Protein backbone atom coordinates (compact mmCIF):
# COMPACT_ATOMS: atom_id res chain seq x y z
CA UNK A 1 0.00 0.00 0.00
CA UNK A 2 1.28 3.44 -0.84
CA UNK A 3 1.12 6.04 1.90
CA UNK A 4 0.19 9.66 1.30
CA UNK A 5 2.97 12.22 1.67
CA UNK A 6 1.28 13.64 4.76
CA UNK A 7 1.11 10.24 6.48
CA UNK A 8 4.78 9.71 5.67
CA UNK A 9 5.64 13.17 7.00
CA UNK A 10 3.88 12.56 10.33
CA UNK A 11 5.39 9.07 10.56
CA UNK A 12 8.92 10.33 9.90
CA UNK A 13 8.55 13.49 11.99
CA UNK A 14 5.86 12.82 14.54
CA UNK A 15 4.71 16.01 16.32
CA UNK A 16 4.25 16.28 20.06
CA UNK A 17 5.47 12.83 21.07
CA UNK A 18 5.67 12.31 24.79
CA UNK A 19 3.76 12.32 28.03
CA UNK A 20 2.29 14.94 30.35
CA UNK A 21 1.85 14.52 34.09
CA UNK A 22 -1.22 12.32 34.52
CA UNK A 23 -1.80 13.65 38.02
CA UNK A 24 -1.96 17.33 37.05
CA UNK A 25 -5.62 18.41 37.39
CA UNK A 26 -5.26 20.47 34.21
CA UNK A 27 -4.17 17.43 32.20
CA UNK A 28 -6.66 15.05 30.59
CA UNK A 29 -5.49 11.60 29.46
CA UNK A 30 -7.25 9.39 26.93
CA UNK A 31 -6.14 5.85 26.17
CA UNK A 32 -8.07 3.96 23.50
CA UNK A 33 -7.65 0.78 21.49
CA UNK A 34 -6.23 -2.60 22.50
CA UNK A 35 -2.96 -4.41 21.78
CA UNK A 36 -4.85 -7.41 20.31
CA UNK A 37 -6.45 -5.09 17.76
CA UNK A 38 -3.06 -3.77 16.71
CA UNK A 39 -3.49 -0.19 17.87
CA UNK A 40 -3.40 1.69 21.15
CA UNK A 41 -3.39 5.50 21.32
CA UNK A 42 -2.57 7.60 24.34
CA UNK A 43 -3.47 11.24 23.90
CA UNK A 44 -3.09 13.96 26.53
CA UNK A 45 -4.18 17.59 26.69
CA UNK A 46 -3.18 20.34 29.07
CA UNK A 47 -5.67 23.16 29.53
CA UNK A 48 -4.58 26.64 30.60
CA UNK A 49 -6.54 27.60 33.71
CA UNK A 50 -6.70 31.29 32.84
CA UNK A 51 -7.55 31.18 29.14
CA UNK A 52 -9.40 27.84 29.02
CA UNK A 53 -7.42 26.98 25.89
CA UNK A 54 -5.57 23.73 25.26
CA UNK A 55 -1.97 24.85 25.61
CA UNK A 56 -0.26 21.52 25.11
CA UNK A 57 -1.04 18.11 23.66
CA UNK A 58 1.07 14.96 23.56
CA UNK A 59 0.63 11.47 22.19
CA UNK A 60 2.12 8.00 22.07
CA UNK A 61 0.75 5.42 19.67
CA UNK A 62 1.24 1.71 19.10
CA UNK A 63 -0.14 1.05 15.66
CA UNK A 64 0.36 1.32 11.93
CA UNK A 65 1.74 4.40 10.20
CA UNK A 66 -1.73 5.80 9.62
CA UNK A 67 -2.58 5.46 13.32
CA UNK A 68 0.64 7.26 14.26
CA UNK A 69 -0.07 10.00 11.72
CA UNK A 70 -3.72 10.39 12.87
CA UNK A 71 -2.73 10.90 16.48
CA UNK A 72 0.20 13.16 15.59
CA UNK A 73 -2.14 15.34 13.51
CA UNK A 74 -4.74 15.33 16.30
CA UNK A 75 -2.27 16.83 18.77
CA UNK A 76 -1.49 19.61 16.27
CA UNK A 77 -5.16 20.36 15.79
CA UNK A 78 -5.89 20.46 19.52
CA UNK A 79 -3.43 23.14 20.48
CA UNK A 80 -5.03 26.55 20.89
CA UNK A 81 -8.58 25.26 20.88
CA UNK A 82 -11.10 25.47 23.71
CA UNK A 83 -12.30 22.19 25.14
CA UNK A 84 -15.65 22.61 23.44
CA UNK A 85 -14.00 23.32 20.09
CA UNK A 86 -11.86 20.20 20.57
CA UNK A 87 -14.94 18.11 21.27
CA UNK A 88 -16.31 19.09 17.87
CA UNK A 89 -13.31 17.65 15.97
CA UNK A 90 -14.53 14.84 13.73
CA UNK A 91 -12.58 11.95 12.27
CA UNK A 92 -13.48 13.01 8.72
CA UNK A 93 -11.23 16.05 9.08
CA UNK A 94 -8.31 13.70 9.79
CA UNK A 95 -9.30 11.39 6.92
CA UNK A 96 -9.28 14.32 4.48
CA UNK A 97 -6.15 15.94 5.80
CA UNK A 98 -4.13 12.69 5.63
CA UNK A 99 -5.90 11.28 2.53
CA UNK A 100 -6.52 8.02 4.39
CA UNK A 101 -7.77 5.10 2.28
CA UNK A 102 -10.99 3.30 3.39
CA UNK A 103 -9.13 0.51 5.24
CA UNK A 104 -7.42 3.12 7.42
CA UNK A 105 -10.48 5.13 8.41
CA UNK A 106 -10.62 3.27 11.73
CA UNK A 107 -7.30 4.98 12.62
CA UNK A 108 -8.98 8.39 12.38
CA UNK A 109 -11.96 7.14 14.40
CA UNK A 110 -9.56 6.00 17.07
CA UNK A 111 -7.93 9.44 17.13
CA UNK A 112 -11.34 11.09 17.57
CA UNK A 113 -12.12 8.63 20.37
CA UNK A 114 -8.78 9.47 22.01
CA UNK A 115 -9.58 13.21 21.93
CA UNK A 116 -12.99 12.62 23.49
CA UNK A 117 -11.52 10.30 26.13
CA UNK A 118 -8.87 12.87 27.07
CA UNK A 119 -11.47 15.64 27.39
CA UNK A 120 -13.77 13.43 29.42
CA UNK A 121 -10.88 12.62 31.78
CA UNK A 122 -10.05 16.33 32.05
CA UNK A 123 -13.66 17.25 32.87
CA UNK A 124 -13.93 14.54 35.52
CA UNK A 125 -10.75 15.75 37.17
CA UNK A 126 -11.92 19.35 37.10
CA UNK A 127 -15.25 18.40 38.66
CA UNK A 128 -13.48 16.53 41.42
CA UNK A 129 -10.92 19.25 41.89
CA UNK A 130 -13.22 22.29 42.20
CA UNK A 131 -16.31 21.15 44.04
CA UNK A 132 -16.57 24.46 45.88
CA UNK A 133 -17.16 26.51 42.73
CA UNK A 134 -20.56 25.01 42.13
CA UNK A 135 -22.69 24.45 45.18
CA UNK A 136 -23.85 20.87 45.32
CA UNK A 137 -27.25 21.80 46.70
CA UNK A 138 -29.19 24.79 45.51
Amino acid at each position, binding site marked *: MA*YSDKVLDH*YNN*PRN*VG*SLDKKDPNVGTG*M*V*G*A*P*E*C*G*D*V*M*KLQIKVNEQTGLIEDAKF*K*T*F*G*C*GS*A*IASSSLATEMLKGKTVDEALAIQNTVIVNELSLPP*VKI*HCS*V*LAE*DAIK*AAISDYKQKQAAHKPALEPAVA
Partner: protein
Amino acid sequence: MKTPIYLDNHATTPMDPRVLDAMLPYFTEKFGNAASRNHSFGWESEVAVENARKQIASLIGASPKEIIFTSGATESNNLAIKGVAEMYAERGNHIITAATEHKAVLDTCKHLEKRGYRVTYLPLQQNGLIDLEMLKAAFTDKTILVTIMYANNEIGVIQPIAEIGRMCKERGVLFHTDAVQAVGKVPVNVIADNIDILSLTGHKIYGPKGVGALYVRRRNPRVQITSQMDGGGHERGMRSGTLNVPGIVGLGEACAIAQKEMAEEAKRLGYLRDKLRNKLEAELDEVYINGTMEHHLPNNLNISFAYVEGESLLMGINDIAVSSGSACTSATLEPSYVLKALGAGDDIAHSSIRFGLGRFNTEEEVDYAAAKVIDVVRKLRELSPLYEMAKEGVDLSKVQWAAH
Protein backbone atom coordinates in the same frame (compact mmCIF):
# COMPACT_ATOMS: atom_id res chain seq x y z
CA MET B 1 25.17 -2.59 -1.96
CA LYS B 2 21.92 -1.77 -3.72
CA THR B 3 18.62 -1.01 -2.05
CA PRO B 4 15.87 -2.09 -1.67
CA ILE B 5 17.14 -5.32 -0.18
CA TYR B 6 15.04 -8.42 -0.77
CA LEU B 7 14.63 -10.54 2.38
CA ASP B 8 11.26 -12.08 1.53
CA ASN B 9 12.43 -15.30 -0.06
CA HIS B 10 9.56 -17.36 1.38
CA ALA B 11 7.15 -15.36 -0.78
CA THR B 12 9.15 -15.91 -3.93
CA THR B 13 12.77 -16.05 -5.05
CA PRO B 14 14.53 -14.24 -7.86
CA MET B 15 15.32 -16.58 -10.72
CA ASP B 16 18.87 -17.87 -10.90
CA PRO B 17 20.45 -16.60 -14.17
CA ARG B 18 21.61 -20.17 -14.86
CA VAL B 19 17.97 -21.24 -14.83
CA LEU B 20 17.03 -18.51 -17.27
CA ASP B 21 19.86 -19.55 -19.60
CA ALA B 22 18.58 -23.11 -19.63
CA MET B 23 15.04 -21.98 -20.39
CA LEU B 24 15.62 -19.43 -23.15
CA PRO B 25 16.00 -21.75 -26.15
CA TYR B 26 12.68 -23.39 -25.32
CA PHE B 27 10.77 -20.16 -25.89
CA THR B 28 12.01 -19.68 -29.43
CA GLU B 29 13.87 -22.22 -31.56
CA LYS B 30 12.94 -25.27 -29.46
CA PHE B 31 9.25 -24.57 -29.32
CA GLY B 32 7.82 -28.02 -30.05
CA ASN B 33 4.88 -29.56 -28.23
CA ALA B 34 6.23 -32.31 -26.01
CA ALA B 35 3.19 -34.39 -26.95
CA SER B 36 3.99 -34.26 -30.70
CA ARG B 37 5.26 -37.77 -31.25
CA ASN B 38 5.77 -37.64 -34.97
CA HIS B 39 8.48 -35.05 -35.62
CA SER B 40 11.78 -33.81 -34.27
CA PHE B 41 10.31 -30.60 -32.81
CA GLY B 42 8.18 -32.66 -30.48
CA TRP B 43 10.97 -35.13 -29.72
CA GLU B 44 13.32 -32.32 -28.78
CA SER B 45 10.84 -30.92 -26.28
CA GLU B 46 10.01 -34.35 -24.93
CA VAL B 47 13.68 -35.02 -24.27
CA ALA B 48 13.94 -31.73 -22.38
CA VAL B 49 10.85 -32.51 -20.30
CA GLU B 50 12.08 -36.00 -19.44
CA ASN B 51 15.46 -34.59 -18.44
CA ALA B 52 13.71 -32.13 -16.10
CA ARG B 53 11.64 -34.96 -14.66
CA LYS B 54 14.89 -36.76 -13.81
CA GLN B 55 16.41 -33.65 -12.22
CA ILE B 56 13.36 -33.11 -10.01
CA ALA B 57 13.02 -36.78 -9.08
CA SER B 58 16.69 -36.96 -8.18
CA LEU B 59 16.41 -34.04 -5.74
CA ILE B 60 13.66 -35.76 -3.72
CA GLY B 61 14.73 -39.40 -4.11
CA ALA B 62 11.86 -40.32 -6.44
CA SER B 63 11.72 -42.04 -9.80
CA PRO B 64 11.11 -39.75 -12.83
CA LYS B 65 7.85 -41.50 -13.66
CA GLU B 66 6.45 -40.35 -10.34
CA ILE B 67 6.66 -36.65 -11.24
CA ILE B 68 3.54 -34.89 -12.59
CA PHE B 69 3.90 -31.33 -13.87
CA THR B 70 1.45 -28.67 -12.76
CA SER B 71 1.12 -24.89 -12.79
CA GLY B 72 2.46 -24.55 -9.25
CA ALA B 73 1.93 -25.61 -5.67
CA THR B 74 -1.65 -24.38 -5.39
CA GLU B 75 -2.62 -26.66 -8.25
CA SER B 76 -0.46 -29.48 -6.88
CA ASN B 77 -2.16 -29.24 -3.48
CA ASN B 78 -5.63 -29.09 -5.01
CA LEU B 79 -4.89 -32.04 -7.29
CA ALA B 80 -3.41 -34.12 -4.48
CA ILE B 81 -6.15 -33.56 -1.93
CA LYS B 82 -9.21 -33.50 -4.19
CA GLY B 83 -7.74 -36.25 -6.36
CA VAL B 84 -7.23 -38.59 -3.41
CA ALA B 85 -10.56 -37.67 -1.84
CA GLU B 86 -12.42 -38.58 -5.03
CA MET B 87 -10.38 -41.67 -5.86
CA TYR B 88 -10.62 -43.18 -2.38
CA ALA B 89 -14.14 -42.00 -1.52
CA GLU B 90 -15.36 -45.57 -1.16
CA ARG B 91 -12.71 -46.32 1.42
CA GLY B 92 -13.45 -43.32 3.66
CA ASN B 93 -14.22 -39.66 3.89
CA HIS B 94 -11.90 -38.36 6.61
CA ILE B 95 -8.87 -36.12 6.10
CA ILE B 96 -6.40 -34.90 8.72
CA THR B 97 -4.52 -31.64 8.30
CA ALA B 98 -3.10 -28.87 10.50
CA ALA B 99 -4.33 -25.39 11.37
CA THR B 100 -1.15 -23.79 10.06
CA GLU B 101 -1.25 -25.18 6.53
CA HIS B 102 -1.14 -22.89 3.52
CA LYS B 103 -4.52 -21.63 2.30
CA ALA B 104 -4.18 -23.80 -0.79
CA VAL B 105 -4.52 -26.79 1.53
CA LEU B 106 -6.95 -25.35 4.09
CA ASP B 107 -9.37 -23.95 1.54
CA THR B 108 -9.24 -27.18 -0.48
CA CYS B 109 -10.15 -29.07 2.69
CA LYS B 110 -12.98 -26.63 3.40
CA HIS B 111 -14.26 -27.17 -0.11
CA LEU B 112 -14.34 -30.92 0.51
CA GLU B 113 -16.14 -30.43 3.83
CA LYS B 114 -18.98 -28.80 1.93
CA ARG B 115 -19.16 -31.91 -0.19
CA GLY B 116 -19.57 -34.28 2.72
CA TYR B 117 -15.98 -35.03 3.73
CA ARG B 118 -14.87 -34.71 7.34
CA VAL B 119 -11.67 -32.82 8.10
CA THR B 120 -9.68 -32.67 11.34
CA TYR B 121 -7.57 -29.53 11.73
CA LEU B 122 -4.84 -30.36 14.23
CA PRO B 123 -3.76 -27.52 16.50
CA LEU B 124 -0.03 -26.98 16.90
CA GLN B 125 2.14 -26.93 19.94
CA GLN B 126 3.50 -23.57 21.00
CA ASN B 127 6.84 -24.39 19.37
CA GLY B 128 5.12 -24.85 16.01
CA LEU B 129 5.40 -28.65 15.88
CA ILE B 130 2.58 -31.14 15.40
CA ASP B 131 1.78 -33.13 18.52
CA LEU B 132 2.18 -36.72 17.31
CA GLU B 133 -0.03 -38.07 20.07
CA MET B 134 -2.81 -35.81 18.85
CA LEU B 135 -2.27 -37.00 15.32
CA LYS B 136 -2.43 -40.59 16.51
CA ALA B 137 -5.71 -39.89 18.26
CA ALA B 138 -7.16 -38.22 15.18
CA PHE B 139 -7.02 -41.29 12.91
CA THR B 140 -10.33 -43.07 12.37
CA ASP B 141 -11.21 -46.09 10.24
CA LYS B 142 -12.53 -43.58 7.70
CA THR B 143 -9.25 -41.65 7.39
CA ILE B 144 -7.94 -41.72 3.82
CA LEU B 145 -5.42 -38.89 3.79
CA VAL B 146 -3.12 -36.90 6.06
CA THR B 147 -1.82 -33.64 4.60
CA ILE B 148 0.82 -31.80 6.64
CA MET B 149 3.31 -29.31 5.26
CA TYR B 150 7.02 -30.12 5.39
CA ALA B 151 8.17 -26.69 6.56
CA ASN B 152 6.04 -23.71 7.41
CA ASN B 153 6.20 -20.65 5.17
CA GLU B 154 5.85 -18.16 8.03
CA ILE B 155 7.70 -19.61 11.00
CA GLY B 156 10.05 -21.98 9.15
CA VAL B 157 9.41 -24.88 11.50
CA ILE B 158 10.11 -28.31 9.99
CA GLN B 159 7.62 -31.02 10.98
CA PRO B 160 8.65 -34.59 11.94
CA ILE B 161 7.73 -35.72 8.44
CA ALA B 162 9.31 -39.18 8.49
CA GLU B 163 7.50 -39.99 11.73
CA ILE B 164 4.15 -38.71 10.42
CA GLY B 165 4.71 -40.71 7.23
CA ARG B 166 5.45 -43.85 9.25
CA MET B 167 2.27 -43.44 11.28
CA CYS B 168 0.26 -43.10 8.07
CA LYS B 169 1.92 -46.12 6.50
CA GLU B 170 1.18 -48.29 9.52
CA ARG B 171 -2.49 -47.43 9.16
CA GLY B 172 -2.72 -47.67 5.38
CA VAL B 173 -3.48 -43.94 5.13
CA LEU B 174 -1.98 -41.84 2.34
CA PHE B 175 0.38 -39.02 3.29
CA HIS B 176 0.63 -35.80 1.30
CA THR B 177 3.04 -33.00 2.14
CA ASP B 178 3.21 -29.47 0.80
CA ALA B 179 7.00 -29.20 0.60
CA VAL B 180 7.41 -25.92 -1.30
CA GLN B 181 9.51 -24.30 1.43
CA ALA B 182 11.61 -27.39 2.15
CA VAL B 183 12.57 -28.78 -1.26
CA GLY B 184 15.95 -27.43 -2.27
CA LYS B 185 16.54 -25.93 1.18
CA VAL B 186 16.86 -29.04 3.33
CA PRO B 187 17.30 -32.69 2.30
CA VAL B 188 13.94 -34.20 1.32
CA ASN B 189 13.66 -37.89 0.46
CA VAL B 190 10.28 -39.39 -0.30
CA ILE B 191 11.45 -42.89 0.59
CA ALA B 192 13.15 -42.10 3.90
CA ASP B 193 10.36 -39.67 4.80
CA ASN B 194 7.55 -42.11 3.93
CA ILE B 195 5.86 -39.55 1.67
CA ASP B 196 3.19 -40.71 -0.79
CA ILE B 197 2.40 -37.40 -2.48
CA LEU B 198 4.45 -34.21 -2.44
CA SER B 199 3.87 -30.70 -3.81
CA LEU B 200 6.69 -28.46 -4.95
CA THR B 201 7.00 -25.30 -7.02
CA GLY B 202 9.58 -23.55 -9.16
CA HIS B 203 9.50 -19.98 -7.89
CA LYS B 204 10.52 -20.81 -4.33
CA ILE B 205 13.75 -22.42 -5.48
CA TYR B 206 15.12 -19.77 -7.88
CA GLY B 207 13.12 -21.17 -10.77
CA PRO B 208 10.26 -19.67 -12.77
CA LYS B 209 6.74 -18.88 -11.56
CA GLY B 210 3.79 -20.76 -12.99
CA VAL B 211 5.33 -24.21 -12.91
CA GLY B 212 5.30 -26.83 -10.18
CA ALA B 213 5.17 -30.55 -9.73
CA LEU B 214 3.43 -33.27 -7.81
CA TYR B 215 5.22 -36.41 -6.77
CA VAL B 216 2.81 -39.34 -6.83
CA ARG B 217 4.17 -42.61 -5.48
CA ARG B 218 3.96 -45.58 -7.88
CA ARG B 219 5.01 -48.38 -5.60
CA ASN B 220 4.36 -49.32 -2.00
CA PRO B 221 1.61 -48.25 -2.38
CA ARG B 222 0.68 -47.31 -5.93
CA VAL B 223 -1.19 -44.05 -5.39
CA GLN B 224 -3.98 -43.09 -7.72
CA ILE B 225 -5.57 -39.69 -7.97
CA THR B 226 -8.58 -38.53 -9.93
CA SER B 227 -7.68 -35.81 -12.41
CA GLN B 228 -9.28 -32.43 -11.83
CA MET B 229 -9.17 -31.21 -15.41
CA ASP B 230 -10.47 -32.96 -18.50
CA GLY B 231 -8.41 -32.96 -21.66
CA GLY B 232 -5.70 -34.75 -23.56
CA GLY B 233 -4.75 -37.13 -20.76
CA HIS B 234 -1.21 -35.82 -20.32
CA GLU B 235 0.90 -36.76 -17.30
CA ARG B 236 -0.36 -40.33 -16.98
CA GLY B 237 -3.91 -39.05 -17.18
CA MET B 238 -3.60 -37.12 -13.95
CA ARG B 239 -3.12 -33.63 -15.36
CA SER B 240 -4.22 -32.70 -18.85
CA GLY B 241 -2.83 -29.66 -20.63
CA THR B 242 0.04 -28.98 -23.00
CA LEU B 243 3.26 -29.01 -21.02
CA ASN B 244 4.90 -25.69 -20.22
CA VAL B 245 8.23 -26.80 -21.66
CA PRO B 246 10.37 -23.70 -20.86
CA GLY B 247 8.95 -23.60 -17.35
CA ILE B 248 9.56 -27.30 -16.85
CA VAL B 249 13.14 -26.98 -18.12
CA GLY B 250 13.60 -24.13 -15.63
CA LEU B 251 12.14 -26.11 -12.75
CA GLY B 252 14.44 -29.02 -13.61
CA GLU B 253 17.51 -26.83 -13.77
CA ALA B 254 16.56 -25.13 -10.47
CA CYS B 255 16.35 -28.56 -8.84
CA ALA B 256 19.69 -29.65 -10.31
CA ILE B 257 21.40 -26.51 -8.98
CA ALA B 258 19.75 -26.96 -5.58
CA GLN B 259 20.91 -30.54 -5.37
CA LYS B 260 24.49 -29.51 -6.11
CA GLU B 261 24.64 -26.44 -3.87
CA MET B 262 22.08 -27.04 -1.13
CA ALA B 263 24.46 -28.19 1.61
CA GLU B 264 26.83 -25.27 1.11
CA GLU B 265 24.01 -22.77 0.75
CA ALA B 266 22.20 -23.95 3.87
CA LYS B 267 25.40 -23.48 5.85
CA ARG B 268 25.92 -19.96 4.52
CA LEU B 269 22.32 -18.86 5.02
CA GLY B 270 22.20 -20.44 8.46
CA TYR B 271 25.25 -18.41 9.44
CA LEU B 272 23.69 -15.17 8.15
CA ARG B 273 20.35 -15.93 9.80
CA ASP B 274 22.03 -16.61 13.14
CA LYS B 275 24.04 -13.42 12.81
CA LEU B 276 20.87 -11.44 12.18
CA ARG B 277 19.15 -13.05 15.14
CA ASN B 278 22.08 -12.52 17.48
CA LYS B 279 22.38 -8.85 16.56
CA LEU B 280 18.69 -8.20 17.11
CA GLU B 281 18.67 -10.05 20.42
CA ALA B 282 21.82 -8.34 21.63
CA GLU B 283 20.66 -4.80 20.85
CA LEU B 284 16.95 -4.96 21.70
CA ASP B 285 15.07 -6.15 24.77
CA GLU B 286 11.83 -8.11 24.60
CA VAL B 287 12.20 -9.75 21.21
CA TYR B 288 10.63 -13.17 20.81
CA ILE B 289 11.42 -15.88 18.28
CA ASN B 290 8.33 -17.54 16.83
CA GLY B 291 8.65 -21.29 16.25
CA THR B 292 11.33 -23.60 17.61
CA MET B 293 14.81 -22.98 16.19
CA GLU B 294 15.71 -26.64 16.68
CA HIS B 295 13.70 -27.87 13.69
CA HIS B 296 13.95 -24.91 11.41
CA LEU B 297 14.67 -23.85 7.85
CA PRO B 298 18.16 -22.37 7.68
CA ASN B 299 16.97 -19.26 5.86
CA ASN B 300 14.02 -18.30 8.09
CA LEU B 301 13.71 -16.00 11.08
CA ASN B 302 10.29 -15.04 12.44
CA ILE B 303 10.64 -12.63 15.29
CA SER B 304 8.32 -10.38 17.29
CA PHE B 305 9.35 -7.01 18.65
CA ALA B 306 7.06 -6.46 21.62
CA TYR B 307 5.20 -3.12 21.82
CA VAL B 308 5.89 -2.30 18.16
CA GLU B 309 3.23 -2.79 15.50
CA GLY B 310 4.44 -4.69 12.43
CA GLU B 311 3.16 -2.44 9.68
CA SER B 312 4.67 0.67 11.24
CA LEU B 313 7.96 -1.21 11.46
CA LEU B 314 7.78 -2.18 7.79
CA MET B 315 7.11 1.47 6.99
CA GLY B 316 10.28 2.47 8.80
CA ILE B 317 12.44 -0.15 7.10
CA ASN B 318 11.02 0.60 3.69
CA ASP B 319 14.24 -0.20 1.85
CA ILE B 320 14.12 -3.77 3.16
CA ALA B 321 11.50 -6.14 1.76
CA VAL B 322 10.14 -8.46 4.48
CA SER B 323 6.70 -9.64 5.65
CA SER B 324 4.76 -9.08 8.83
CA GLY B 325 2.08 -11.11 10.56
CA SER B 326 0.40 -7.83 11.42
CA ALA B 327 -3.26 -7.55 10.49
CA CYS B 328 -2.63 -4.24 8.80
CA THR B 329 -0.46 -5.88 6.15
CA SER B 330 -3.03 -8.52 5.24
CA ALA B 331 -6.03 -8.12 3.00
CA THR B 332 -8.33 -9.55 5.68
CA LEU B 333 -7.21 -7.26 8.52
CA GLU B 334 -6.69 -10.40 10.60
CA PRO B 335 -3.29 -11.05 12.14
CA SER B 336 -1.37 -14.16 11.04
CA TYR B 337 -3.44 -17.29 11.60
CA VAL B 338 -0.21 -19.27 11.85
CA LEU B 339 1.08 -17.28 14.82
CA LYS B 340 -2.37 -17.32 16.40
CA ALA B 341 -2.43 -21.11 16.07
CA LEU B 342 0.73 -21.25 18.19
CA GLY B 343 -1.22 -19.49 20.92
CA ALA B 344 1.11 -16.54 20.57
CA GLY B 345 -1.57 -13.94 21.26
CA ASP B 346 -2.68 -11.35 18.78
CA ASP B 347 -0.28 -8.75 20.13
CA ILE B 348 2.72 -10.94 19.33
CA ALA B 349 1.31 -11.62 15.86
CA HIS B 350 0.85 -7.88 15.26
CA SER B 351 4.50 -7.33 16.19
CA SER B 352 6.05 -10.06 14.06
CA ILE B 353 8.44 -9.79 11.14
CA ARG B 354 9.39 -12.66 8.86
CA PHE B 355 12.86 -12.61 7.36
CA GLY B 356 13.45 -15.00 4.47
CA LEU B 357 17.08 -15.13 3.37
CA GLY B 358 18.03 -16.34 -0.06
CA ARG B 359 20.81 -17.38 -2.41
CA PHE B 360 21.60 -13.85 -3.53
CA ASN B 361 21.69 -12.11 -0.16
CA THR B 362 25.08 -10.92 1.06
CA GLU B 363 26.46 -10.50 4.56
CA GLU B 364 26.56 -6.75 3.99
CA GLU B 365 22.83 -6.73 3.27
CA VAL B 366 22.03 -8.71 6.40
CA ASP B 367 24.20 -6.39 8.53
CA TYR B 368 22.45 -3.37 7.04
CA ALA B 369 19.02 -4.88 7.69
CA ALA B 370 19.87 -5.68 11.30
CA ALA B 371 21.11 -2.15 11.99
CA LYS B 372 18.10 -0.58 10.32
CA VAL B 373 15.57 -2.76 12.18
CA ILE B 374 17.24 -2.02 15.51
CA ASP B 375 17.13 1.70 14.79
CA VAL B 376 13.46 1.75 13.77
CA VAL B 377 12.30 -0.51 16.63
CA ARG B 378 13.98 1.86 19.09
CA LYS B 379 12.32 4.85 17.49
CA LEU B 380 8.88 3.22 17.50
CA ARG B 381 9.22 2.12 21.10
CA GLU B 382 9.81 5.77 22.01
CA LEU B 383 6.43 6.33 20.41
CA SER B 384 4.75 3.33 22.00
CA PRO B 385 2.45 3.82 25.00
CA LEU B 386 2.71 0.08 25.63
CA TYR B 387 6.49 0.19 25.94
CA GLU B 388 6.17 3.12 28.32
CA MET B 389 3.64 1.25 30.46
CA ALA B 390 5.73 -1.92 30.46
CA LYS B 391 8.75 0.08 31.59
CA GLU B 392 6.65 1.60 34.39
CA GLY B 393 5.92 -1.93 35.53
CA VAL B 394 2.31 -2.12 34.35
CA ASP B 395 1.18 -5.66 33.57
CA LEU B 396 -0.38 -5.14 30.14
CA SER B 397 -2.31 -8.39 30.33
CA LYS B 398 -4.24 -7.02 33.31
CA VAL B 399 -5.22 -3.70 31.74
CA GLN B 400 -8.87 -3.26 30.78
CA TRP B 401 -8.56 -2.21 27.15
CA ALA B 402 -11.31 -0.39 25.39
CA ALA B 403 -11.45 -2.88 22.50
CA HIS B 404 -12.90 -1.51 19.29
